[in-house]
């Protein structure tokens, strides 16, 4: 399973939900090099998930564009696959059938489908459950199936919308490491939205912080740490503290504007 990364270029991206609503975020610009794991963090309502849905082609921007190696994202595609907060597996299917469902939408031979499904299941270490119904799996195992279902498409970009937030701490920590390790081995890009500073440090190569209303990227921080990362390492803890203080600075981002408005009033 050979996956290549991609350069992501976000140019002047603006979004509003209908003409009567306010702007979600305004003129966002961002470049992510091939193979990068990019964390997007920020408070609720700053437009992180909306940005991710635009990257997946599920939502359309009001202005601006997203380019993947020069190709504009206009609709969902197996080249850029999104993994959601909940696994949303098809309960009438087995693990193998769920993992291979995306391939069944394309023109893949039976032999190729079987080969790719087997490898994706091996990557997420669910070989013993391949023929089990997904309703018989734990929450963590179900999220692994959802990960395999995304990986089997061999995407250039994997988008994750708080994918592990509903899981227990142990399962979450294990999946965070696994996803980063698989992405680095295969070379594809990750863009993930999270509220969890630890998750950003463990999984990301860089974190961008969104804040404000309308939202925008107000800070970014390189997470230059060796792999594998352990959350108890001093270097991880130091970066976590830095990211936390940057995040808190970002939380004050609106204050000058609020103060100005108060002065006018």
């Amino acid at each position, binding site marked *: 399973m050979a996956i290549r990364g991609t350069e992501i270029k976000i140019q002047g991206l603006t979004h509003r939900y209908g003409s009567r609503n306010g702007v979600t975020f305004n003129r966002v610009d961002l470049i992510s090099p091939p193979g990068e794991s990019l964390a997007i963090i920020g408070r609720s309502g700053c437009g992180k998930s909306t940005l991710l849905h635009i990257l997946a082609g599920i939502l359309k921007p009001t202005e601006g564009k997203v380019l993947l190696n020069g190709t504009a994202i206009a609709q969902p595609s197996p080249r850029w696959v999104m993994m959601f907060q909940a696994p949303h597996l098809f309960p009438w299917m087995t693990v193998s059938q769920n993992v291979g469902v995306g391939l*069944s939408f394309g023109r893949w031979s039976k032999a190729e489908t079987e080969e790719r499904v087997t490898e994706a299941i091996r990557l997420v270490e669910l070989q013993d459950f391949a023929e089990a119904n997904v309703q018989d799996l734990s929450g963590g195992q179900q999220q692994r199936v959802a990960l395999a279902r995304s990986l089997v498409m061999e995407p250039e970009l994997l988008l994750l919308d708080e994918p592990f937030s509903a899981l227990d701490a142990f399962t979450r920590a294990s999946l965070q490491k696994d996803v980063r390790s698989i992405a680095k081995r295969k070379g594809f890009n990750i863009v993930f939205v999270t509220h969890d500073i630890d998750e950003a440090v463990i999984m990301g190569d860089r974190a961008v912080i969104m804040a404000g209303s309308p939202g925008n990227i107000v800070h970014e921080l390189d997470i230059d740490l060796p792999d594998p990362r352990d959350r108890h390492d001093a270097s991880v803890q130091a970066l976590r503290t830095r990211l936390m203080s940057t995040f808190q600075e970002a939380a004050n981002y609106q204050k000058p504007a609020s103060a100005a408005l108060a002065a006018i009033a």
Partner: protein
Amino acid sequence: MSYAATPGESGFCRLMKHQGMQTLGWAVGGVAILAALWLIGGYLISINPTTKTFAKFGLVPTLQAFPELWGAGKIQNALAASGFRLGAGLLIAVVIGVPIGILMGRVKWFRDFTNSPFQFVRMISPLSWMPLAVLVFATWNGSIIFLIAIAAVWPVMFATAAGLAKVDPNWFKVARNLGARPLHILTRVIMPAITFDVLSGIRLALGVAWIVLVPAEYLGVTSGLGYAIEDARETLSYNHLTAMVVTIGIIGYFLDGILVALIKRYSWHRGA
């Protein structure tokens, strides 16, 4: 009651066997009580001089009529004719009901647009269409199939629409995200998701169609279970009449059992 376990049999298997035997025991008991009441009723009718004429409605004469009817091929012929009408009517109901039900469940304006007229037509007794059906269709068979179809289409349609309303919208988002086109969403997501509801609707439709079939066959046809009952009544063969009524019950019970088995086979709901 105790059951001997075969070597290696698990406690779960023994429990299931025990529960299965218990269920069968209750069912046999229920049928035995019904047969006993029928036997007693038949006996009371036969000893009363004013009702003695109807003694052949009793259990024993009815059971004696089965080999006669079977030997003459009357049961087989009636089942073949009624089965064809029932099957054709149900097939039409499914072919019309499932796609319209999907549209109702998926497209809000279509649901709003069709709800009132459909609810209005649904409340009209299927048999009240009988005079119109006789006028419109060239054959008696056509009229009967129409009556079965118009009785059976509503449960299928509304069960399909209700099933679709319960489908998790995130499944559509996931499928589109993985490159599914509308046909894939229909065949790989919608249909498997609602199979349980569609089959439950067909089960209800079968019950309604079976009820409509017999009176509909009192129309001018010369075959089928309804005709066989009417013919037995006119020739005062009361034991043949009750034998046909029992046949209707047995076949209806058997068909319902097939649908229950299909629902179990294709249901993905845990505990269903």
